[in-house]
């Protein structure tokens, strides 16, 4: 019996093997996000070889991005049911196969299927489980760990872009795709690093799902050849899905989901339309490319420094506020963009936007973890990234249509700016409502039982508040001591 207790629950190590997990996630981000961005370097080659125009070849990039985000929940389901290691290794094998088959392609349709769908599916199986794993290994330094892990996309793009160009020059696009397929196989190495860890379970999941858990244990004990297998299987599946996706009904999560939809709608067109906008106001090609490089580099800096900043004790309890502040500031930058019509004005814009873009990307997993807890983090991240897919897909074409019909970029940028500001206002509003409800109920609790007021340690108020909102363990603990019961 002593043996069983020793293997079980631990608290997040906040270091040790955790840093290897961060390194693994960093490599996963490079192999997925950075490689996706570098696929666009192949377009000129595809256009010449297959004699197609830009629009046809650009579909490859859209398909990869869309499939990666759409199948993110599939990734979390696979890694929850098999194991994180197996899930990521499987994803690495799939993505690598996609690249290798793509190097033998004889038409653009083949590339859509291999490089688009197969590789996108492989990436989806890797991305959200890896990010969820980082959350399990860190609690105190969570934001810094996420910052380092997410900076992989910026640093990866920076390093891979010239390397891919060199590969194409040396080996032409077929050889370059083959070698890139080998590079993407390193996702299997990242998968091997993701050692499983069992944590102390959250209070919420224990109480809500006790019934489901006993049924799950029965499921495990039942033999596969019993006559009631089909019924058992169905109830088991239903129950496990119910347990896994119980967070979908939480009002906090619903608010986060809606705000993510609007935020993803707003943030994607800038990377597509900054260069054309800069060219239209008279900036030269090289200076426009320089603006994009600044955006990329400051993005990386924002990732890491904002992660470190929000880990400080003073900001740790305000990560949610920092997140909505970063999203709101980005929206404001968008609103100012139509007024910036020269290079000396666009450079500070690039710096500001890039910094806060990196900032909120780091905080998405942190805020999600705060809302749903660490056990459901993998599934929740799957859903959050799934919600990125459709806005990523529709937002650039809609912005392009607006630019074509109005003849200027103002309408498109204003729409994106308002979308992001709405997203951050929604989050702030939801938080305000929750706080008001809590203080109201605490006030009522105080008034309903005057005797309990004599308990100066405030434990009654604590337990009432705890029933209201079990997720905010930290914030309640900070509020209560300040609450004066006299």
């Amino acid at each position, binding site marked *: 019996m002593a*043996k069983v207790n*020793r*293997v079980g629950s631990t608290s997040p190590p906040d270091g040790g093997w955790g840093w290897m997990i961060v390194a693994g996630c960093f490599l996963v981000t490079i192999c997925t996000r950075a490689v996706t961005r570098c696929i666009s370097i192949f377009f000129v080659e595809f256009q*010449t*070889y297959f*004699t197609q125009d830009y629009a046809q070849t650009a579909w490859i990039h859209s398909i990869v991005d869309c499939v990666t985000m759409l199948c993110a929940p599939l990734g979390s389901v696979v890694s929850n049911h098999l194991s994180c290691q197996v899930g990521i*290794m499987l994803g690495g094998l799939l993505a690598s196969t996609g690249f290798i088959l793509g190097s033998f392609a004889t038409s653009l349709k083949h590339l859509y299927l291999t490089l688009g769908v197969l590789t996108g599916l492989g990436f989806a199986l890797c991305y959200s489980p890896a990010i969820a794993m980082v959350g399990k290994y860190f609690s105190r330094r969570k934001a810094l760990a996420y910052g380092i892990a997410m900076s992989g996309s910026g640093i990866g793009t920076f390093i891979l872009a010239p390397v891919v160009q060199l590969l194409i*020059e*040396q*080996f*032409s696009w*077929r*050889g*370059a795709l*083959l*070698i890139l*397929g*080998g*590079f993407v*196989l*390193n996702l*299997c*190495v990242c998968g*091997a*690093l993701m*050692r499983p860890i069992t944590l102390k379970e959250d209070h919420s999941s224990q109480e809500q799902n006790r019934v489901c858990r006993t049924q799950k244990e029965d499921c495990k004990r039942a033999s596969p050849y019993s006559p009631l297998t089909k019924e058992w299987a169905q109830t088991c599946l239903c129950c496990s899905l119910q347990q896994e996706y119980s967070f979908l009904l939480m009002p906090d999560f619903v608010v986060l989901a809606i705000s993510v939809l609007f935020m993803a709608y707003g943030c994607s067109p800038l990377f597509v339309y900054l260069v054309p906008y800069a060219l239209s106001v008279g900036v030269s090609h090289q200076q426009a490319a320089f603006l994009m490089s600044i955006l990329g580099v400051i993005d990386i800096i924002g990732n890491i420094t904002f992660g470190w900043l929000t880990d400080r004790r003073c900001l740790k309890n305000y990560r949610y506020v920092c997140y909505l502040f970063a999203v709101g500031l980005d929206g404001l930058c968008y609103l100012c963009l139509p007024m910036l019509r020269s290079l000396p004005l666009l450079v500070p814009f690039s710096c500001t936007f890039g910094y806060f873009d990196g900032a909120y990307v780091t905080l998405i997993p942190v805020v999600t973890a705060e809302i749903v807890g660490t056990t459901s983090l993998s599934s929740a991240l799957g859903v959050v990234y799934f919600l990125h897919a459709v806005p990523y897909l529709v937002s650039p074409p809609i912005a392009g249509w607006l630019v074509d019909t109005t003849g200027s970029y103002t309408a498109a940028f204003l729409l994106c700016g308002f979308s992001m500001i709405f997203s951050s206002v929604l989050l702030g509003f939801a938080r305000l409502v929750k706080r008001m409800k809590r203080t109201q109920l605490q006030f009522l609790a105080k008034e309903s039982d005057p005797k309990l007021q004599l308990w100066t340690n405030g434990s009654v108020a604590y337990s009432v508040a705890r029933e209201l909102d079990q997720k905010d363990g930290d914030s309640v603990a900070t509020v209560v001591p300040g609450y004066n019961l006299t």
Partner: protein
Amino acid sequence: MRALTGLLGSPAPRAPPSRPLLLLCLIAAARWSLVDGDPPDSAFTSLPVREEMMAKYSNLSLESHSISLTEQSSMPVEKNITLERPSNMELTCHFTTSEDLNSINVTWKKGDELLEKNNYLINASGNTLYTQYTFTIINSKQMGSYSCFFEEEKEQRGTFNIKVPELHRKHKPLITYVGDSTVLVCKCENCFPVNWTWYSSNGSVQVPVDVHMNDKYVINGTHANETRLKIMHLSEEDGGSYWCHAIFQLGESEEHLELVVLSFLVPLKPFLAIIAEVVLLVAIILLCEMYTQKKKKHPEEGKEFEQIEQLKSDDSNGIENNAPRHRKNESGNQ
């Protein structure tokens, strides 16, 4: 006659000569040149004949170019003119100087060949000397460098380089694989050649590409200013230099492309190296994990072993300590 030659030999007049005098001179010059027996080139005929020719070529476009020189210009001034189709040319040189305009000798040369004086106009106003050479270019023989010379103590020179449009674009070698097909593209910005031809060369000799070979070469182009050569079923011998020639009415210009044909083993080597590295790293990491897990189990087994050893040693200590020993055994077993 001598008076006339004297007139021709003297430095060109400063003021435009009166029309009857000019006509007289030029008719005489025409007769003189005709008597010489040399059949004149179409561009170097006398003015009335030239006017006829100008009337014939009046449907051609007129290109005017000018160069300004000063006495301080230390280096010869050059101007590049690209010409695709036949046109009338008007080349003007201005020379500004503080010196006496009468003492300057003005000449025109094509390459090193001196041009006839009666074919160009010379004018002066204020401090500046103008000279204008008008002619028509209809074939490649008339292309080249035309220079105007102003001679005093130093020679000032302005050159017009008339050439067909050039195709020079930096091309990196095109990499392809055996059994694959490839497309070689030649493009000309802002120019429209009459025809394109392709040549391949293995050394210095250019051999035209045989388009009639089945299934090997296809030449087509979507616009007039580009051409595409598609080569199918590549083999190692197809590698080397390829030349595309753009043919204009007034000449030809060419571009060089390099084709490299590799076998598929070439990128396979780095690929296999990366796969080997991945397999090695995965094996190392998984072995490390199994080793750490075993180590975690062993300390527990080790502690139980110690407990059993202690009980055994207590057992052998003595028989009289029965009661306390039982209690100790019980607590130890739990």
